[in-house]
């Protein structure tokens, strides 16, 4: 399946791009994280500690064990600091 993957804040900076389109067979968010970690050192660095990260699926906050079936857009980012 084809996924749009978005990165924000220091995740974006560490990986070096805001968005990319991926072809993946990952069943869950965690599977996708493992795929990304294996790609290059900058991904491994960004995803070294996922307890420091949040994930949104199709613009809604989700969990790392969530399935990706039917999802179009995945976003990874640190905890929000709005307000």
């Amino acid at each position: 399946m084809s996924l749009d993957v978005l990165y924000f804040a220091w995740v974006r900076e560490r990986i070096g791009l805001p968005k990319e389109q991926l072809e993946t067979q990952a069943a869950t968010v965690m599977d996708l994280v493992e795929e990304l970690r294996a790609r290059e050192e900058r991904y491994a660095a960004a995803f070294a500690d996922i307890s420091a990260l949040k994930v949104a699926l199709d613009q809604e906050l989700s969990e790392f064990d969530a399935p990706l079936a039917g999802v179009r857009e995945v976003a990874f980012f640190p905890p929000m600091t709005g307000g």
Partner: protein
Amino acid sequence: MPVRIQAEPFDPGAELNAFSKTASDVGAVVSFTGLVRDVSGGLEVMEIEHYPAMTEPAIEAMVTEAKTRWALADVLVIHRFGHLNAGDTIMMVATASRHRADAFAAADFLMDYLKSRAPFWKKEVTGEGAAWVESKAEDETALERWKA
């Protein structure tokens, strides 16, 4: 429920006056204004990044939730992104209700959720370099009290 996400500065006083006038059958308006604080004493600029496709829906969901919990006549949320300077207004929340208790509680609730569930990230740029503002454990604790 006006929710505005914008780079442009805004006048919180003028917004509050306009908001107070449009609401009918309202006896209480509560507002909160958030400013850029120069924590280190050397802030050159604060950069606020957001997730455009998610920001407005996420805040609208918070406003909808607030309206189910309290009797609100109207809600206003304005949040800026982009480059801001110390003392600039980052955001404001205003709530209007017949009575003050609901207006206060809803504004408090919305601020807690905006702080750690609206997809904004702040970066402080000083002469020493740039650093992302880290979320605080108490921001998560603050959400707990609304879960009962």
